């Protein structure tokens, strides 16, 4: 029998994988609209819920959705936080600067809310119930971060 060792070893492996995700009809239409500075929600014909993110199927009524309804880029802040924990950006793989504001925004004309960044220049103005508005990027490309963040309206 060979002498046991107490030295715990480990093996490091680098993952480098890439996937191609098909957005599908509903999300494609939505993101193309976002690229034009417009927001639209899917609307269930049965219960009337206006869904953001858009989806092909209403899980409450269990029916297909194919209706659309325009949604404003203004709304009410339902919940907010300032995140101090640095986090890796899921798309770039880089660490994102912190702190940053996050909010759940009930957009005018929708029945679900949107999770997005908040402008934290004046953190004391972040209150539940505050009116907020989307600040759009100029160089839009059809992605959720075509909206830079939401800012509190005075």
């Amino acid at each position, binding site marked *: *029998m*060979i002498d*046991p*060792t107490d*030295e*715990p*070893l*480990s*093996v*490091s*492996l*680098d*993952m*480098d*994988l*890439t*996937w*191609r*995700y*098909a*957005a599908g009809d509903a*999300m*494609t239409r939505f*993101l*193309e609209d976002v690229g034009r500075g417009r927001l639209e929600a899917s609307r269930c014909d049965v219960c009337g819920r206006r869904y953001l993110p858009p989806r092909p199927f209403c899980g409450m009524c269990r029916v297909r959705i194919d209706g659309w309804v325009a949604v404003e880029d203004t709304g009410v802040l339902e919940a907010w936080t300032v995140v101090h924990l640095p986090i890796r950006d*899921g*798309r770039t*793989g880089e660490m994102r600067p912190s702190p940053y504001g996050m909010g759940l925004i009930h957009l005018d004309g929708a029945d679900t809310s949107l999770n997005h960044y908040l402008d934290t220049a004046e953190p004391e103005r972040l209150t539940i119930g505050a009116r907020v508005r989307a600040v759009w990027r100029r160089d839009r490309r*059809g992605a959720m971060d075509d909206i830079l963040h939401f800012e509190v309206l005075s």
Partner: protein
Amino acid sequence: MIVQGSIRLSFTYAAGRIGSRFLVGLRDSRVILGAHCSRCALVVCPARAFCPVCSTGMDDLREVGPGGTVEVWSTVPGRGTYGMIRLDGADTALVHRLLGDAGLWEPGARVVARFAAKRIGSITDIEGFERGEP
């Protein structure tokens, strides 16, 4: 619309109690260890924590090889040739690289381990197996 997404992260896997002893053997002593199951009277290589036959924990490690016999091989273009090598003293085969004369390996060919000059405690501390006797 098709969106592309990537993941580039590093993962670090503990080799564990038995795996570490196997890797330390490669790194420090150029020794290949098998694990002996007393119930099955079997030496499995590479050494691992549990007997593949009876699932009993194993901690009796024994030196096997460095010579062995090729059981089967496969060449993957661009990546090299892989073989299952029954090391002298082992009852199971080690999966590793075969070095040299790709496509000419016949079952029963005698090979011997070639160790890397710089060894870090990895299964790749064995560069591969080449024709010859220990």
